[in-house]
């Protein structure tokens, strides 16, 4: 399939043209029109990730879906981060980056983040679990075991910065040393029309 350049209209209609649909009084100016880029990001979320100072890969992209929660409208976005919590240690904190919105709070409505570890000397292969305490992690013995400490994504404000600056972290800790790979995949909503800027840490 031919792929239009990133911001062309998907159906190839000039955005300045107002077409009237048969049996409808709506013109294009009254419809929500998506670009090809927006449609694809609606399907996959952030797919181009930058490299940060801790070698983490991360990015944010707008999703096609909009929400109307009791009369308040929201746009939706996707945050992704890929990183390794290595070398093995009892504590790991990775700064993913900041999500700065023009106005309003951000609300994380979905979390599909995954943890992958090796289990070569255990049952074999790799383990994959949702990011949480209890997710399988490994160590130098290459045997996966459930983490019994804490494992979560932290959304935090920075003292002296405006509340609209949301710093994002991966936080994991356990009594024994551990390591694993982390794939963060979360959706959040913000008030409709506000700006969203991501700065990788």
């Amino acid at each position: 399939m031919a792929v239009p350049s990133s911001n062309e209209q998907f159906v190839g209609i000039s955005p300045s043209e107002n077409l009237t649909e048969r049996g409808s009084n709506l013109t294009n100016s009254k419809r929500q029109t998506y670009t090809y880029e927006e449609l694809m990001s609606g399907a996959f979320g952030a797919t181009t990730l930058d490299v940060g100072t801790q070698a983490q890969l991360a990015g944010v992209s707008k999703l096609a879906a909009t929400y109307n929660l009791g009369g308040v409208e929201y746009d939706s976005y996707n945050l992704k981060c890929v990183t390794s919590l290595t070398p093995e240690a009892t504590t790991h904190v990775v700064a993913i980056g900041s999500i700065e919105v023009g106005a309003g709070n951000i609300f994380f409505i979905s979390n599909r983040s995954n943890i992958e570890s090796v289990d070569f000397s255990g049952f074999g292969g790799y383990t994959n679990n949702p990011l949480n305490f209890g997710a399988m992690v490994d160590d130098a013995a290459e045997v996966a075991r459930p983490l019994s400490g804490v494992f979560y994504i932290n959304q935090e404000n920075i003292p002296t910065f405006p509340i609209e600056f949301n710093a994002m972290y991966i936080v994991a800790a356990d009594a024994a040393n551990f390591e694993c790979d982390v794939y963060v995949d979360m959706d959040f909503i913000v008030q409709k029309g506000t700006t969203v800027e991501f700065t990788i840490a």
Partner: protein
Amino acid sequence: MEETLIKVTDVKGTVLKPIDATFKVEYKYEGEAAPEEVLVGDVKKGEVKGDDFPAPDAEKDLEYSEIVIDVKGGVKNLPYASKTLKFIGKVPPKGVPTDLPFTGKKPETKKEKVDAMQAKREDLLERLKKIYPPKES
């Protein structure tokens, strides 16, 4: 049913959920020297909840009502100023936003943002190490 009586926000309408602050509501009646405190407490998760603001004394004329938001000091608190909102001749409307002014510094460069995020990361890591001490591999 409990409703949001006061929404502690910045001027953009963002709820200041983590803010450490107290509030009081005062009613000042005509002919009285000082306002009367009718409600007081801590701001919880950026809100003050309750059934309603207390009804004013029906025997007196309400000159004005006031909401006083007192933001506590401390380097870890959000950088917003205390504020008093005045409502002439009426009790405050339910759910009123406070529009607290920002007193901090908006980061202007990527380096400022990254440095601040890394400083916070190191602080969090050190606090975790106290609970989960490092071990030899």
